[in-house]
């Protein structure tokens, strides 16, 4: 069971290099991290997975982008959530592993239909700590409401959750203990947090029946 920070944005997107963020992540109790962008070879420290984020307005655009060599080479493929019909459609795309940016969508944009499909297809939903840390007031309240809503759907339909710091700097990274405290704000239990922190491996390599080759 690998405790994974499901999304970080190292330099040049942020102000901290991948090696430095990996060093910090190890100190904060993570076994692996998913870095968005160009990931070089990391000789030591936690395992670094390569992530790719697709930001598209239509399913057609998503299908075009998943064929991109940079996305095909990624270990974890994220798609930014959007309108209700878009979210229902993207959870059916085989190449998509995780739907992210759910806090920025409208209420009920990720509904029970999308939740059921996500559970059937093994697609996860990312819970980012950045809105809880960075935002204040009504914006943070809205993010907490969205996360509580996602959690209730997850408890009912059983799709995977991932937890990410969404950090662009070492100053945005938080320890596993802090993540537990922050997730408790919208009602997530310690066991659910542990499950979510270790779910990246299950989403990228789901259990499938043994296939005889040759």
């Amino acid at each position, binding site marked *: 069971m690998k405790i994974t920070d499901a999304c970080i944005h190292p330099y040049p997107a942020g102000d901290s290099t991948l090696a430095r963020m990996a060093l910090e992540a190890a100190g904060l109790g993570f076994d692996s991290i998913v870095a968005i962008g160009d990931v070089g070879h990391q000789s030591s420290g936690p395992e670094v997975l390569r992530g790719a984020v697709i930001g598209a307005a239509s399913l057609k655009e998503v299908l075009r982008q998943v064929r991109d060599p940079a996305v095909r080479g990624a270990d974890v493929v994220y798609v930014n959530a959007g309108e209700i019909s878009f979210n229902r459609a993207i959870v059916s795309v085989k190449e998509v592993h995780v739907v992210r940016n759910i806090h920025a969508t409208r209420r009920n944009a990720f509904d029970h239909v999308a939740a059921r499909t996500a559970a059937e297809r093994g697609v996860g939903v990312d819970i980012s700590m950045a809105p809880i*840390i960075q935002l204040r007031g009504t914006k943070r309240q809205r993010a907490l409401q969205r996360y509580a809503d996602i959690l209730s759907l997850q408890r009912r339909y059983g799709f995977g959750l991932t937890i990410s710091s969404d950090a662009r700097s070492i100053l945005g990274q938080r320890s596993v203990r802090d993540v537990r405290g922050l997730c408790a704000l919208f009602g997530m239990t310690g066991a659910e947090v542990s499950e979510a922190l270790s779910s990246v491996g299950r989403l990228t390599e789901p259990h499938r029946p043994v296939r005889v080759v040759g």
Partner: protein
Amino acid sequence: MKPRPPAMRAKRRYILARILPYGVTMDQKQVYLSVIEAATSLWGDAAVGFAQPAVVFCDAGYAVVRCRRGTEKDIATALATVNAIADERAALRTVATSGTIHALRRRIKPIRPLSEAGEVKFGENYFTVYRYPRHKVDLVEKGIKHQKSLFFTEADLEER
């Protein structure tokens, strides 16, 4: 005025937090204001009034936050939402919680630059280089206020 006997005082807990980035000297009052802003924003006036958070120590890159016993988890969560101190980007990392400041002082391991600060040109700007243990390198842009900071490792710096 005669002090209240120990048995009648409210029980307290102390939280040790490391201040990031390394090397910045933060004023105790500024740290207190950031902690109170974060806690009040997260938990509201009533809960923070009950928890009575206060910064009782701030030195060597660490801060000790005092609170009422039973509220330490809430205050530790609030510390995780601190993202600026005195308009400078910063973070507080909870290290330990204890019933005495004495026990927390034993956990304080001051992090100081390993050698003399160097200088490097990065793009168009000049940065001061501070090297820390475990091959960590902080680059602080030369300037008067709101300098940009970059967080590298020794290997990253050699590559560039």
